C-alpha cells in the first residue's frame, strides 16, 4: 500500500466501520454482515491496514484494556480523508447512474 490518497475498497470499509469505536473482530463482522458476505477481509490484511492507518494517524487507539481486542476509532484527519473519498466515489457512481438512466438498451 503506497499511499492512502485514494482509498482501496478494503481501507474504505475499515475506515467506514471505524466511524464508531470498534475492535478488529467487530470490523470484520460488520463488513461481512453489511455486504452479506460478498466482501470479506482476511485477518492479515486487516491487521496490516490497521497498522497503516495508525501510522498515518487516520485512526487512533481508543481503548486497550483488553489486549486481545484493542478498540480503534477514526481521528479528525481520518474523518476528513474518508469524506473526501466518499466524494470521489460519488462522482464515479453518478456518472454510471446517469449513463444508465436513459433507456438505450439495444
Amino acid at each position, binding site marked *: 500500500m503506497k499511499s492512502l490518497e485514494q482509498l482501496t475498497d478494503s481501507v474504505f470499509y475499515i475506515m467506514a466501520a471505524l466511524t464508531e469505536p470498534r475492535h478488529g473482530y467487530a470490523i470484520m463482522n460488520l463488513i461481512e454482515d453489511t455486504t452479506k458476505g460478498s466482501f470479506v477481509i482476511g*485477518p492479515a490484511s486487516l491487521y496490516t491496514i490497521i497498522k497503516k492507518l495508525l501510522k498515518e494517524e487516520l485512526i487512533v487507539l481508543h481503548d486497550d484494556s483488553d489486549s486481545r481486542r484493542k478498540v480503534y476509532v477514526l481521528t479528525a484527519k481520518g474523518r476528513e480523508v474518508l469524506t473526501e473519498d466518499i466524494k470521489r466515489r460519488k462522482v464515479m457512481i453518478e456518472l454510471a447512474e446517469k449513463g444508465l438512466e436513459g433507456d438505450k438498451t439495444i
Partner: protein
Amino acid sequence: MKKTKYIMSWGLAFAEKQDLEKLSKKAKQGWRLKSLAFAGFRLEKGAPEHVQYSVDYRLLKEGEKEEYLELFSQAGWEHVCSSYDIHIFKAPYGTTPIYSDTESAVDKLDRLLKPVSLIGKFILPLTMISYLLMNFLTGPIEQFSKIIFLISMVFAVPTLMMVVALMLRKKKLTITKSY
C-alpha cells in the same frame, strides 16, 4: 512421546506455495506441522486432517501478539507455530484467505524484502570492491581481498537470489490481481 519427523523446505521466500501445499499433503496423511526447524519443518504424527496452511511475516512488539493472534483465530485461522517474525496458521479449506487484497499482500513481501535488500546493499559493494582489489593489486592486500571476496560471495549469492525471487512474486501479485 509422539512420533516426529523432519521435512526439508525449499525456502519459504522462494517456494511458499509449494511448501505450504506439501504441509497440507502431509497433514492429510496424519503428519501435522509442529514447529519450524532449520531449513525445514518438524511434523508430528496425529489424526489426519484436511487443512490449508498460510504464512505471515510480521515482527510483533510487546503486547501486539495477543491482538494479532486473536484476529486470526476469530477469522478461523488456528495458530500453529511461530519463529521470530514467521507465523504459520492453518484453517479448513474455504476459509477466507489471510490476505484478501493485493495491496496488503504486497506489503507482506515488502516486509520480507526490507532486511534482505539492506544486506544486499552492504554485501554487493563489498563483493565488487574486493573483486577489483584482488585483480588489480598484488601482495598481502590481494590475499586479503581474495578472502573477503570469497566470504562476501557466500552471502551475496543467496541474498541476490532472494531479492530476485521476492521481486518476481511481487510482480506476479500485481499483474494477476489488478485489472
